[in-house]
């Protein structure tokens, strides 16, 4: 085959750039996350939305502890690094002390649902005017693929080798659904990054959540289903389909609540 086109240099004439490698608000694109990881995809969606709504110079990110913490010291937004599970209370303090800021958290399912479930629920119930993003891959990726509270029944993890069994390990928590029940929550949605269409939908959700905060309407939340081929023990090309068949049936993508709708 010799049909391949040159891809090492930019076209010199007659073309315009529509997407540049690394998001503007990321200092260094290179990272040590695994091949096929969904978290950088979600991170990109969040960073681009901050730019899109024109809130960069007021943005503060509160970052939890998980694989995505790899980004906490190379974002070009101000970062407050939180402890595992505790990002929502830090975000609360930031926003209450400086209401003019745009405050967002990035947490994983292990961080938010296992370690810090009460933090996010109370923050939502208070109607705290912050936005929380949960990157949900149904495993503790950083420790190498262990069960979290969102792990699907039947899903194999390193501490549920025969699959999550309800009798032994309980049932998964649908945290977006819990949050949507709370009166302080103004916007709740669940997206996914396993294909370009879902990424596009997720980007809209992320933007809508941040706009909800900017409008002062209360707590906003987007759960983003992400791939973790390493922690799922699947090949990287199979991970998008694994997300669809394993996580998405119980954590169904869609907008759960939007007070502006």
């Amino acid at each position, binding site marked *: 085959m010799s049909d*391949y086109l040159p891809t*090492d240099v*930019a076209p010199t004439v*007659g073309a315009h*750039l529509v997407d540049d490698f690394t998001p503007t608000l990321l200092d260094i*694109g290179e990272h040590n996350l695994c091949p096929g990881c969904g978290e950088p995809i979600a991170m990109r969606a969040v960073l681009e939305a901050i730019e899109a709504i024109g809130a960069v110079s007021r943005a503060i990110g509160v970052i939890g502890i998980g694989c995505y913490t790899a980004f906490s010291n190379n974002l070009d937004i101000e970062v407050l690094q939180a402890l595992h599970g505790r990002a929502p209370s830090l975000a609360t303090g930031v926003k209450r002390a400086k209401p003019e800021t745009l405050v967002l958290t990035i947490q994983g399912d292990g961080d938010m649902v296992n370690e810090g479930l009460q933090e996010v629920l109370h923050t939502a119930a208070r109607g705290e005017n912050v936005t929380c993003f949960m990157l949900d891959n149904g495993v503790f990726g950083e420790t190498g693929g262990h069960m979290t509270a969102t792990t699907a029944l039947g899903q194999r993890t390193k501490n549920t080798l025969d699959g999550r069994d309800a009798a032994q390990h309980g049932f998964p928590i649908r945290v977006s659904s819990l949050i949507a029940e709370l009166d302080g929550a103004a916007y709740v949605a669940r997206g996914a990054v396993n294909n370009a269409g879902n990424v596009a939908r997720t980007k809209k959700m992320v933007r809508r959540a941040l706009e909800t905060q900017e409008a002062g309407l209360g707590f906003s939340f987007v759960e983003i289903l992400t791939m973790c081929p390493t922690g799922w023990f699947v090949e990287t090309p199979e991970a*998008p389909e694994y997300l669809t068949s394993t996580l998405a049936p119980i954590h169904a993508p869609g907008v759960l609540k939007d007070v502006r709708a």
Partner: protein
Amino acid sequence: MSTVLTRGTVVIDVEACKGCDLCIDACPPRVLEMTVHEVNTRGYRFPRLLPGCTGCQACAWICPDFCFQVYKYDRPVELSVGDAS
């Protein structure tokens, strides 16, 4: 020899690629193909571009390693299949 309408193109940061394949399925016109034997300096296979890119940015959105720069041609070009480098 046939030609393919090509509205855009990409620059690929081959060295940043970890060979995850996500862009291959994400590409609507299916003009990205992974190498089979060729690898980058870290040992990962990487994608290559065939004629027919629409500049839709799906590859850039799905790529976890920020390997893509996407351009749209001001005027679509016709590229001959089998005619490229």
